[in-house]
């Protein structure tokens, strides 16, 4: 695997992403380009399903870099995010030393806490040199981790190094490409955001969403894809608890395509609405008049 050279301008970045099927807004391409050029983590916030995680995946493929993903959750701690000692192997080593009559404590200690007894978790893996070039580190849904973990990330994100008490400091020769995403279920501390380039990822405009649907659901007819996008865009104007994201649009278009639907009808929309709306309250509100109205808007030829 050879690593592609980094794009040299915003347009080149845009082209690179497009060539891998990610149709980004120019502003997103600009911040991505900047984060590569400046070696700064990129902090992406926005509603669920607008393509925040996807960009990390696309970047790793397009640049030929390894993708290392850290999925955050409540209770995420150092031993599952950074490293852990392989206690069982250490124990065996101690027994072996005992059996061999080895009694030098200092020596034993430095043998036990060596690289080969360390289980490396995503953050430490991301600091290691890689033949293909620095990896893409995706820290996904940081808002799910506790505040304490954020504080730990500060050292890693500003100096790209980790301090392990028994071992010393591990520093990355070349900083990884870091993408952090958040759905804003809670606010991330300013200290962390300050170290990153911040970008709010919005729902795409209708023409871009149409292009995305055509790229991601190749078999879909022009008429249906247009109706799908109009329908989804109209839904986002409604006051829903959770508006559908681009991911939902693609799911829905795929579902309709699988069902061989030619155009949107009340029947087919009613059957597949679950691909778009994920709350029962929202689905209930979509029955009847609202559905008719939105459907009429989406299917009227203009």
């Amino acid at each position, binding site marked *: 695997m050879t690593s592609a050279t980094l794009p040299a301008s915003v347009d080149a970045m845009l082209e690179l992403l497009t060539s891998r099927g990610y149709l980004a807004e120019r502003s997103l391409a600009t911040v991505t*380009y*900047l984060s590569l050029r*400046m070696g700064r983590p990129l902090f992406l916030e926005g509603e669920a399903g607008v393509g925040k995680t996807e960009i990390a995946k696309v970047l790793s493929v397009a640049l030929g870099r390894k993708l290392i993903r850290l999925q955050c959750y409540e*209770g995420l701690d150092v031993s599952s995010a950074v490293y852990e000692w392989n*206690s069982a192997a250490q124990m065996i080593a101690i027994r072996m030393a005992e059996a061999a009559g080895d009694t030098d404590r200092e020596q034993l200690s430095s043998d036990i806490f060596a690289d080969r007894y360390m289980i490396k978790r995503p953050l430490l893996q991301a600091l290691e040199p890689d033949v293909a070039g620095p990896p893409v580190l995706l820290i996904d849904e940081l808002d799910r981790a506790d505040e304490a973990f954020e504080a730990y990330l500060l050292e890693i994100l500003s100096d790209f190094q980790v301090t392990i008490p028994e071992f010393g400091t591990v520093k990355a020769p070349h900083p990884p490409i870091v993408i952090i995403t958040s759905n804003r279920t809670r606010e991330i501390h300013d200290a962390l955001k300050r170290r990153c380039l911040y970008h709010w990822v919005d729902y795409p405009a209708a023409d871009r969403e149409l292009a995305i649907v055509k790229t991601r659901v190749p078999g879909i007819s022009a008429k249906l894809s247009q109706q799908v996008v109009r329908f989804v865009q109209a839904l986002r104007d409604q006051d829903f608890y959770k508006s559908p994201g681009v991911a939902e649009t693609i799911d829905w278009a795929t579902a309709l395509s699988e069902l061989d639907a030619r155009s949107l009808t009340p029947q087919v929309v009613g059957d597949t609405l679950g691909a778009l709306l994920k709350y029962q309250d929202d689905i209930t509100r979509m029955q009847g008049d609202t559905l008719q109205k939105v459907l009429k808007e989406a299917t009227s030829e203009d």
Partner: protein
Amino acid sequence: MAINHLAPEQTEQFADNIVGFARALRAAGMPVGPGAVIDAMNALPVIDIGNRPDVFTTLEAIFVKRHEHALIFSQAFNLFFRASEEWKHMLDSVPLPEQAKKKPQAGSRRVQEAMSQPRMTETPQHQERDLRLSVSDKEILQKKDFAQMSAAEITEALRAIEKMRLPQAELLTRRQQPDPRGLRLDMRRTLRASLRTGGDIIDIHRLGRIEKPAPIVALLDISGSMSEYTRLFLHFLHGIGDARKRVSVFLFGTRLTNVTRALRQRDPDEALASCSAAVEDWAGGTRISASLHNFNKLWARRVLSQGAIVLLISDGLEREADSRLAFEMDRLHRSCRRLIWLNPLLRFGGFEAKAQGIKMMLPHVDEFRPVHNLSSIHELISTLSRPLPPHHRSLIRSAA
């Protein structure tokens, strides 16, 4: 491979512009540090500065760290880079001018009050006016002056807050810490300890789950009919916020305002003053249903996600009581761990839930309590201090 689109003299001019722009943003209330300015200087040479949208996105990514600031930024950008000599004028038109204003000296109000005669509280005309405001249908956009509260009341409220002892540990988290009675073995510490004796395991170290207090989310009604209580409750909420970390406070009348950050300031007077600056509808009408809807939609997932206790402080006198109100209350109830409704109207002995709004809301709360004087605030504290109801606790433990 740096692409430098700038001639040296242009660079200097651009640097001046960026510094000026950063200062303008700061004056408009955005936290922009010198680090960000340096970042901007480093970023601009690598993009094409002839392309205005790119420059916009670049500066936005560097200066804006909260989505809420995006609007201020875009206004400032458009004004500043249209005609940079006009930027002084711009400061008047940008919202959030708090930082630019001279800060009132901490505690000055209290000192003044302490020096002056205690004022006569609640003359009959005063009450009449409040009554008129509370039933007014019109949204009354006015800023109510906090200085109306007497020094004696503040002293009392503060004394009550000092006595508060809120529990510090009630929710088991998934994080671990050394705990001699813990259930999990801490292999790392055990091994390190055993090495001290040359490999014999003599001391087993254990890990237990960390406990932390549940977050508290307060929704405080600031409509006209509640105006006699608003200040006291704000003091109370400021006090809780001092004692524990995760307290979010929202004020609502005709609209919902998040004042959590404003309330974090140390000095209660300053904190309350910045709250009042943030809110546009002091002592106006009430739209509980719409405010709850906004809360459920925009904030619930962000502040209730970790098993929060919700304090709803309102008299429940809703003008537009319909099925939406019950629906929103139900949603709120289902998304938090415990919903406590504090209602000052309960102070009347023979209180009956006759108002339509109150009837709609009552089925959806876990507790309904009076809160109108210091003793009821004390009772509230003891409620919050009580351990969780047994079934809640066991659920949390068994889910562990």
